Structures are given as structure tokens and as C-alpha cells.
């Protein structure tokens, strides 16, 4: 990442942080929740770079949220880092087992299989009364190394933590995209058999990308649970996963920051559409999705690309 991008990223994140003291509470909440959800979207973007679309990323999103809730409710663990580690550990086990199976599937079969797994979790949670069934249950704000805080400071701390994680995730996932494995992932999308002829197993590439996406979704799920203060089985329902796919397409796969911008944009559209006309929210969502697929198949990020190409063209003409 060059210095300029780095500075812009830092400034944006700092602005959100400082905004906590200036902006109204709802706006800070909106930023926080969209940053948390952007991790799941980033996971989807990682999968899209290998040429796979998951309609079941809600599985790990839900695991992240429920692990946070269960740790607090049944085991008395309230430490943020402990909860996050447990969540990541569980999602690693789940993604290891499912990844072994899923790395053999492509296209719609991958989409359908991931969907089946998330719906299985949905089915289990809905019927489990101790986990609040369809209502879910509330999640408290966490402590940090046994330091507990008041509600207002707790809200600020969770925002700070989200921003810090976002910062490091952006830096390291960017590095991953530009690493050997990152480029092999792209080639796997282009032509798997050629990758195989070069001596690399596409299955292992897919497996690693899948696990990475799972971890990101779990982190996102845990953060969302803390920020919103509630978990329910809808986190694993297929429409939730569908929404994440929508946001991933909105941002596109061209830059690691795109999912974060798209996520913030999505939450804003969501809020205003619900506010102005609650019954047209899905029409707006569907129409934007159609327009993106037809006119901007590489996401909103490609708008910048189009302008840059135009500038180059104009410069070469003159």
C-alpha cells in the first residue's frame, strides 16, 4: 500500500473515531455496525477472487455472534480478546471440516452447499430454546483484560477496537492480495486447470481462502453482536448472506477498502430507505443490484477506474 493510500485510510478511520464525540450517537452506531459487517463482506470478496460466491457466509457471522453471547451467558467469560480467540478457534475448526468438503465444489454447487450449511445452523438455533429460539438473546458490552467500563465508554471502546482491527485487517489482507498466494487465487478464478499444471493445488488455494473468509466473518459477527447488543438466528438465514453478497458486489473486488466503503454506503441506504418508505426498501435494493450487475460488474470501485482510463485517453489524444 503506498503512503498516500495509507494516509487517507488513517485519516478516514481517525475521522470516524473523532466523530464519536461530535456526531450524533446514531451516526457513530451506524459507522460502527457497518465497519463490523464489512469484515464479512471482505471475506466474500476474498472468495470472489477465487471465483466463488458463498450464499452461506451467515454461518460464520452467526457463529461469531453466538459464541460471544454464549461465552457471556453460560460461561461467564466477558473478556473481548478471549471471546474473539474462542470464536476464531471454533470457526477455524468448522471451516477446516467444511472446507475439506467445499474445496471440491464450484459455481452454483458451492453457493448451494454453503447455503445448506448456514440453513442447518439456522434450523438448529431456531429449535434450541436455551438459546432464545427465534428471539435470540442480548449480548453485553465486553471487558478488556478485566477492565470494565461504563456504557458510554464501552461504546467508545468497541468503536476503537473495531477501527483498530479494521486497520490491521486492511493492511494485512492487502498484503495477502499482493502475495504469491493472492495472485494464485486470482489465477484459480481465471483457469483452474492451468494453475494445476503449474504444480499448485487449486483445492488448497480455495481451502485457505475459505478459512480466511470464515475467520473474518466470525470476527465481524462477534463485533456486530457487541455493537448491536443482540444476537438472533436470522444472522444465519440465507437472506442475511444474500445481503452480504449484495454489498460485496456493490464494492467490487478491485480494492481491499472497497468492502468497507460499500458497507457504510449500504447501511446508509438501508437506514434512509427504511425511514422514507419502508415498503420500497427491497425495490431499491433489487434495482441497485440489477444496475450494478448490468453496468458496473466490477463494483462501484470501477467508477474510479473508468475515469482514470478516460483521463489517460484524453491525455494521449491531446
Amino acid at each position, binding site marked *: 500500500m503506498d503512503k498516500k493510500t495509507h494516509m487517507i485510510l488513517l485519516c478516514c478511520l481517525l475521522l470516524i473515531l473523532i466523530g464519536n464525540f461530535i456526531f450524533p450517537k446514531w451516526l457513530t452506531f451506524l459507522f460502527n455496525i457497518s465497519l463490523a459487517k464489512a469484515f464479512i463482506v471482505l471475506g466474500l470478496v476474498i472468495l470472489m477472487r477465487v471465483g466463488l*460466491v458463498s450464499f452461506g457466509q451467515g454461518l460464520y457471522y452467526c457463529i461469531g455472534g453466538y459464541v460471544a453471547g454464549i461465552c457471556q451467558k453460560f460461561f461467564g467469560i466477558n473478556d473481548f480478546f478471549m471471546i474473539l480467540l474462542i470464536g476464531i478457534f471454533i470457526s477455524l475448526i468448522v471451516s477446516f471440516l467444511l472446507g475439506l*468438503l467445499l474445496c*471440491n*465444489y464450484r*459455481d*452454483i*454447487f458451492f*453457493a*448451494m*452447499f454453503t*447455503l*445448506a*450449511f448456514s*440453513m*442447518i445452523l*439456522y*434450523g*438448529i438455533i*431456531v*429449535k434450541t430454546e436455551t438459546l432464545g429460539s427465534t428471539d435470540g438473546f442480548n449480548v453485553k458490552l465486553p471487558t478488556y483484560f478485566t477492565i470494565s467500563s461504563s456504557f458510554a465508554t464501552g461504546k467508545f471502546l468497541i468503536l476503537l477496537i473495531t477501527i483498530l482491527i479494521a486497520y490491521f485487517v486492511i493492511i494485512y489482507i492487502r498484503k495477502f492480495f499482493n502475495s504469491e498466494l493472492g495472485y494464485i487465487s486470482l489465477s484459480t478464478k481465471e*483457469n483452474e*486447470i*492451468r494453475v494445476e499444471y503449474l504444480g499448485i493445488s487449486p483445492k488448497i488455494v480455495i481451502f485457505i481462502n475459505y478459512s480466511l473468509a470464515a475467520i473474518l466473518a466470525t470476527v465481524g459477527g462477534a463485533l456486530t453482536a457487541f455493537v448491536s447488543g443482540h444476537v438472533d438466528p436470522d444472522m444465519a438465514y*440465507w*437472506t442475511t448472506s*444474500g445481503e452480504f*453478497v449484495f454489498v460485496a*458486489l456493490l464494492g467490487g473486488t478491485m480494492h481491499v477498502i472497497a468492502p468497507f466503503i460499500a458497507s457504510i454506503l449500504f447501511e446508509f441506504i438501508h437506514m434512509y430507505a427504511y425511514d422514507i418508505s419502508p*415498503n*420500497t*426498501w*427491497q*425495490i431499491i*435494493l*433489487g*434495482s441497485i*443490484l*440489477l444496475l450494478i*450487475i*448490468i453496468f458496473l*460488474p466490477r463494483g462501484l470501485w470501477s467508477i474510479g477506474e473508468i475515469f482514470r482510463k478516460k483521463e489517460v485517453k484524453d491525455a494521449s489524444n491531446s
Partner: protein
Amino acid sequence: MNILVILLDGLVYSSWLFIVSTGLTLIYGVMRILNMAHGSMYAIGAYTAATIVGIYFNHGFVPWGSYFFFISGAMFAGIIAGLLIERGILRIMYGSDEVIMILVTYAILLILEDVIKFIWGVEGYFAYQPYTYLGRSHIFGISFTNYDLYLIIVAAIIGVILWLWLNKTRFGKLLIAVINDQEISVAMGINVTKVYIITFAIGCMLGALAGGLTAPGISIVPGMGIQIIIVAFAVVVIGGLGSIGGALIGSLLVGMARAFAVHLFPQIELFVIYGVMALVLAIRPHGLFVRAKVRKI
């Protein structure tokens, strides 16, 4: 619990699943589009049927005549909606990746969800008269509504008509040619666009028919299409996408599994449908009735 009751209950549910999923698998088989908007067709069919039943019984006409009107009304609504979607949006998207087509139809599903709310409002609809008119039967000491039992016969009739249409008519043969090789079919003078339009309209009609037939037995509420499509996916993926025979076996598997779960282990009712789907996909990656494709460079 009498096992025969469970089997009969499973058979009723399977018949319903078969009607819901045949249209979906037909469209995929011919056009390679896994049509998420099929859920909306189901909802449109159900709402149309409920509206017609409401008007019909308000006028005090003879009850048995209602069946013809609400069923054909639902089918007609399905055809119209199908034609609008195919000509309006899908036409420009042909040739895209299968996953992109899922997303396109997902967008259509979202849009139609709200369009349905615009037309019919957000209040629930009831069209119970055709359901109760047929009365009840007592089988093995358990009371079944006759309407549900007739559904088994209707599903069988739909299956037979589809089989005859695909295997014994000229259009069916054209369809099989298009499925196997679209380019050669064009070269041979088959109007592939026309084949696509007709297939999509008939697929949508089947979806709306399923909704229309279910309408009398349920309360029709917004969001029903989103719930249904996911079950229909499970059925067609189990059987093998694009195979009518597969849809039949998939419906029976899911229907029976659910019936056993509901009667014996109610806790796993929701889990079992997707459990069966995951199990079948793990063993037969392309479903029960479809062979894996040869990889091409």
C-alpha cells in the same frame, strides 16, 4: 404413531414440493438459470388465487366452480409475470455466468417482493373456502383434509403431463435438442429464443400454479416467496438440477424426511431438509440424477 400416517403425511408434503420445484428445475435444465424469482411466482400465484376466491365467493356462485377460476387465474398470472421478466430483464443477460444469473434473479425476487406489497398490501389474505368445501377423511384414525389428499393426484397429473410434453411432443424434442447443444440447434433452424420464452413462461406458470394450489390451505403473507424458494432449492439440488425425475425423487426424500422428523423428532424439523441436502451433495456433488461434467481447459 402409525407409520402409515407418517407416510401419507410425507406424501402430501412431497406432492406439494414436487409442484413447487418442477418449474424451477425445468427452467434450469433448459436455460441454465437457477431462478430465485420462482419464489415470487409462487407468491403471485397464491395472491392471485386468494383474490379470485374472495371475489368468487362474495358473489355467491356455486363453490365447485371456484377451482377452475382460481387455478387458471394463478397460472395466467404466472405466465404474464414470466413473460415480463424474460423479455424485460433476462433477455439482456443471456450468456452470463450461472452465478451472475442467480444474482440477477435474486434482484428480481427482491423487487417483486415489494411489488407484491404494493398490489396486495401487507395484510394477510385467506382463501379457505375451496379448502374446507371438500371436507375431511379419516384414515388410520387421523383426520386428513381431502384437499390435501387431492394434491397428491394433482401432482401426479402435472408430472405425467410434463413427461408427455417433454418426451412425446415436437416441442419437447426441440427442447431436448436445445438443452444438449444450443449452437447446433440454432444452426438446424430451431428458434432458440422462442424455446427460451416458452420454457420460462411455463416454468413460471408452474411456480404460480403451486402458489395457487397452496393458497386455500394457508394464510398468504408477504415474504412467503423467500421462505419457499429455499426449500425448492434443496429439492432440486438433491435430485440434480435440471432433472424432472430428480425433482420427483428430491421431493419424496425431503417430504418423507420432514414428515418423519415432524412426527418423531419435532426438534429437527428445519434441520432435516438442509441436512438431507448437505448429505446428498457430499455424496453426489451434482445431485442424484446428474452426472459430473468433464473438465475442459
